[in-house]
């Protein structure tokens, strides 16, 4: 395999920049954001250079590696800190640095009034570095470092405005939910080490076929748990909605385009394990199916524009996870949806940020309305993202989502029908809630309740959104042209290894999808046309109430884990206090009491000492007498 000396700079540049911004402090306030953006753009340039170089090579020579140093060397166990850039990771590198750079530019304007802008950019660069390490690591151990790094960056950025206690709590919630997944990943690494004696992708891939299916299933399920934590999948999904406490560019970059898709990357990267472990693969499909409907249903009831988009993200990642569970061809479609989703969801999040910018940080869509004519460019770009996510041809989502629905149907049998219907239903609900978001925000009566008209955002914010919109128009076509991405990823995931029969012709699936999408749009239009109230209606169905409460995910977690956990801890504390401390205190108490009783004998009078001695001597004599008699 070829080596390249450039890879390290992808990670080192943003990492150094982040360290400099944090260490130099206030003196960097004036130029910090410029440096951070430049660094991110440089990383993107390196990515593009590597991509072009990779394209010019033959299929089997495309992957490049770089060994940084020997990390662990114990007996026969060797782990190098080395990087691997192959067809799969280059997709992520370009997405992370490309979208990342645009969001850096956007943030310069968006955060310009924030006193802590430099710290914000430092965290953004830290995130870029960690995420690149995650996708470039050539072993699970290297990946793990990046995995934890993005968790840290996500925590820091969700709680960026930690002066508000609710935001700090949201950051903690995200961190704790992610920890559960991280435990899964570390267990997966341990099982892999126990099974294969190796943690590198290449090493495990080589031996995966010979391992027992139990071990592979165990590794697969643990990896799935990890993916659930990071990608906000059922049952660890509850943190994503609250993560919207972070600044909007963070929501766009980390909680829509890149970090939350790390779970999809993990499963795709571990394709050699999942292909050999059908049970784990089935679980992947189930988790994806549940989450895509779960997120979509939550999305229908949210009035907070960012939370509606977050629910949508959860649902779209559900699509990707479902696709990864559909076997070799599914991986490629999952990555395709991931890339197109990265574009259109980031552009919509940035659009939401632009709306908030014009509306004095109001996030409640019930207080929006008719913004389209005040913010035409934002409305246009948001509209393009909207058309992309609901899957209208020829926008990006059409190509990627249709492929997933098609693949789901092609599974065949009951499973194929169930999955296909689930994905279709998801597409309909997606059309419904996204139409709802667009109507409530950009159309209808003005409900913001104050005289100040919303103003369009500065060019520095609009240009990144515009560029992302181009992606949400064109990326789907470019990636699927001649099955380009599928062939590109072939050496990594073997998408053509087994060829499913096409049960339904693609055109039928597309027509079905478009029909349900149209139904979804029509329902939303008929429901939300005309004037709306600035308050959410109180009298709503049980289902709406449930969706507003996030389908009771927090209540469930609270009653199932948090309260029992608290009472367990409280009981252990009581046991510690009463039994263990109690014993220690009892020993002390007995000594103290005995001492204070005995002290009264020590009265200083010689005669009483003498009496005691005599009594003691007599007692001793009596004892000896009794014993010897």
């Amino acid at each position, binding site marked *: 395999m070829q080596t390249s000396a450039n890879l390290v700079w992808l990670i080192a540049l943003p990492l150094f920049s982040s360290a400099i911004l944090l260490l130099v402090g206030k003196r960097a306030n004036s130029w910090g954001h410029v440096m951070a953006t430049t660094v991110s753009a440089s990383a993107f340039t390196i990515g593009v250079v590597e991509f072009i170089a990779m394209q010019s090579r033959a299929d089997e020579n495309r992957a490049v590696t770089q060994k940084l140093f020997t990390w662990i060397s114990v007996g026969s166990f060797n782990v190098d800190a080395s990087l691997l850039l192959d067809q799969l990771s280059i997709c992520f590198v370009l997405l992370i640095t490309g979208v990342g750079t645009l969001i850096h530019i956007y943030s310069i304007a968006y955060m310009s009034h924030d006193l802590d802008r430099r710290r914000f950019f430092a965290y953004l660069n830290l995130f870029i570095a960690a995420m690149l390490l995650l996708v470039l690591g050539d072993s699970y151990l290297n990946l793990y470092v990046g995995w934890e790094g993005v968790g840290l960056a996500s925590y820091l950025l969700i709680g960026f405005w930690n002066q508000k206690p609710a935001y700090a709590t949201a950051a903690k919630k995200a961190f704790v939910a992610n920890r559960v997944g991280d435990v899964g990943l570390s267990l997966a690494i341990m099982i892999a080490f126990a099974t294969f004696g190796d943690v590198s992708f290449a090493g495990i891939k080589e031996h995966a076929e010979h391992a027992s299916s139990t071990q592979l299933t165990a590794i697969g399920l643990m990896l799935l748990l990890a993916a659930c934590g990071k990608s906000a999948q059922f049952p660890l999904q509850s943190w994503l909605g609250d993560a919207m406490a972070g600044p909007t560019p963070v929501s766009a970059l980390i909680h829509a385009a890149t970090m939350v898709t790390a779970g999809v990357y993990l499963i795709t990267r571990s394709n050699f394990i999942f292909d050999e472990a059908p049970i784990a693969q089935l679980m992947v499909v189930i988790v994806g199916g549940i989450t895509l409907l779960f997120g979509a249903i939550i999305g229908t009831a949210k009035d907070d524009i960012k939370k509606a988009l977050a629910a949508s993200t959860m649902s779209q990642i559900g699509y990707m996870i479902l696709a990864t569970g559909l076997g070799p061809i599914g991986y490629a479609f999952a990555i395709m949806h991931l890339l197109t989703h990265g574009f259109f969801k980031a552009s919509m999040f940035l659009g939401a940020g632009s709306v908030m910018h014009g509306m004095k940080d109001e996030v409640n869509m019930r207080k929006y309305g008719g913004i389209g004519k005040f913010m035409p460019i934002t409305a246009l770009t948001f509209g393009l993202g909207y058309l992309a996510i609901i899957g209208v041809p020829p926008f990006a989502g059409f190509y990627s989502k249709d492929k997933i629905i098609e693949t789901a149907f092609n599974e065949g049998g009951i499973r194929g029908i169930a999955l296909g219907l689930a994905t279709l239903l998801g597409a309909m609900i997606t059309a419904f809630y996204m139409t709802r978001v667009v109507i409530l925000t950009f159309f209808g009566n003005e409900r913001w309740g104050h005289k100040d008209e919303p103003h369009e955002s500065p060019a520095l914010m609009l240009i990144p959104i515009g560029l992302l919109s181009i992606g949400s128009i064109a990326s789907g076509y470019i990636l699927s042209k001649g099955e380009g991405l599928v062939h590109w990823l072939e050496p990594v995931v073997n998408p053509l290894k087994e060829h499913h029969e096409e049960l339904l012709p693609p055109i039928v699936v597309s027509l079905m999808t478009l029909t349900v999408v149209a139904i979804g749009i029509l329902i939303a239009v008929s429901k939300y046309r005309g004037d709306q109230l600035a308050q959410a209606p109180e009298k709503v169905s049980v289902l709406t109430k449930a969706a507003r409460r996030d389908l009771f995910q927090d209540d469930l977690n609270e009653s199932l884990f948090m309260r029992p956990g608290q009472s367990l801890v409280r009981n252990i504390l009581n046991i510690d206090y009463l039994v263990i401390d109690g014993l220690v205190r009892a020993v002390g108490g007995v000594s103290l009491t005995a001492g204070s009783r005995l002290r009264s004998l020590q009265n*200083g009078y*010689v*005669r009483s000492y003498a009496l005691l001695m005599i009594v003691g001597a007599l007692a001793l004599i009596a004892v000896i007498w009794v014993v010897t008699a």
Partner: protein
Amino acid sequence: MAIANYLYLSAILFTIGAVGVVIRRNAIVVFMCIELMLNAANLAFVTFARINGNLQGQVVAFFTMVVAACEVVVGLAIIVTIYRSRRSASVDDASLLKR
């Protein structure tokens, strides 16, 4: 005269001394009572030496005398010092050790 009578005498003397130590306050008298107890013990030693027909008890008696002499020297010195500083020879007044 039965030799056991010496032992009775020794016991009586010891008891008188012990009771004296416990009930008298004057340091000199207490001191004398201690001497009485020592000598009662000496009498017992000598008597037992006589009973057993060897010299060990008598040797111990000599030891006791020497020790008693030393004790008298030290003890009287202490009593005199206490009397000088506190103007009292009562043992109950010298109860400072409890602190």
